[in-house]
């Protein structure tokens, strides 16, 4: 399992492997939105929490199809499925590797992008906390989506379509948490709900993902 994790991380940092590119996408979105919406600081500050969360979500989403599709295409997934590690473990490791290469950089970069979008000063802490709590759920849910579409030839956008509705609760509570933090409102319930979603997905979804992969390989 550790071998799988190091292999996935190594593949990610090799040329074209996708590491840091989710981050670049996040950055670029933070640049594009003001360019599209216009430069008024007040408008930007109002939409900053939502835009940052939507950006994090899309950055995750875009890297999802790498989780299994590459392994499926070159036959590694068949071989992994017959290897002596449980498929649930494989799935969990893959989700974890996805989080390390995508979610974690987003968490670290978010404050910088907050500056670009005129995020109110009080909200920076909440932004980091909400992303730290929420991005693992994005990775685990995304892994499930990737598992669902693995057999389908380049399910790339189909995958987005399947996963996005699943992402909505995480997005709503995450963005709400930041917005409340920015406005100085109580944040406890949003915090608890976000943590609950993450804990639940991490505990249950790997089993669903493994089952779905077994079906897809058949």
């Amino acid at each position, binding site marked *: 399992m550790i*071998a799988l994790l190091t292999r996935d991380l190594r*593949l990610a940092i090799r040329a074209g492997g996708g590491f840091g590119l989710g981050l670049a996408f996040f950055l670029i979105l933070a640049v594009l939105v003001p360019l599209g919406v216009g430069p008024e600081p007040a408008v930007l500050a109002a939409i900053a929490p939502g835009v940052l969360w939507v950006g994090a979500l899309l950055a995750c989403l875009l890297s999802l199809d790498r989780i299994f599709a590459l*392994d499926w295409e070159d036959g590694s997934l068949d*071989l*992994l499925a017959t*290897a002596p590690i449980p498929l649930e473990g494989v799935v969990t490791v893959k989700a974890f590797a996805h989080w390390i290469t995508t979610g974690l950089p987003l968490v670290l970069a978010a404050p910088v992008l907050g500056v670009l979008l005129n995020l109110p000063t009080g909200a920076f802490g909440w932004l980091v906390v909400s992303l730290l709590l929420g991005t693992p759920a994005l990775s685990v849910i995304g892994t499930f989506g990737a598992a669902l579409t693995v057999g389908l030839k380049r399910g790339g956008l189909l995958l987005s379509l399947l996963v996005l509705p699943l992402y909505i609760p995480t997005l709503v509570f995450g963005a709400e948490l930041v917005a409340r933090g920015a406005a100085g409102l109580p944040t406890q319930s949003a915090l608890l709900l976000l943590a609950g979603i993450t804990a639940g997905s991490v505990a249950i979804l790997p089993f669903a993902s493994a089952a779905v992969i077994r079906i897809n390989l058949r």
Partner: protein
Amino acid sequence: MSVARGGVPLIAGLSLCLTAGQALILRGPNGCGKTTLLRTLAGLQPPLAGEIDLPPDAVAYAAHADGLKATLSVRENLAFWAAVYGGGDVGAAMGRMNLSGLSDRAALNLSAGQKRRLGLARLLVTGRPVWMLDEPTVSLDAASVALFADVVRGHLAAGGMALIATHIDLGLPEAQVLDLTPFKARRPAPGQGGGFDEAFL
């Protein structure tokens, strides 16, 4: 045992038995179901009928595709599989398949035959007793085919088993050959039950 692909039964009434040290070569025209049979035996898809009496963790399966990561080097590719299967000797496997000179080359930059040799070297690091190989010698030159035959012989001598689907002569005269043509699934007599979507008929 019968197997099906895409809802169409392909092979029916086959029964196989391998003992330690034995190799069986599957032959049959293109599309007769060799790949499907091997995938079923390796536990990747359920049989249509019949059962497989084989612990799934005894099998090392090598498919048409080699499962190589283009950006990893030869050594890294092998080391990964060695770690997954609990640590075979990577250096020895590379030596056996004549890959030592290429150990730091990215798999992307190998020729077709070199890729294939790397795919086969993976078998050596699995330490599994039953090898299921789907056309292992595709794109190999004569010297590499002989090398491969040696490796299989070594595996058999160590008590392993091998089930090999191929169209080419492998240079393994001692292996049994099984032609799958007679086991082609036929349309079952009405009312007799061929196991396939019976409920809808």
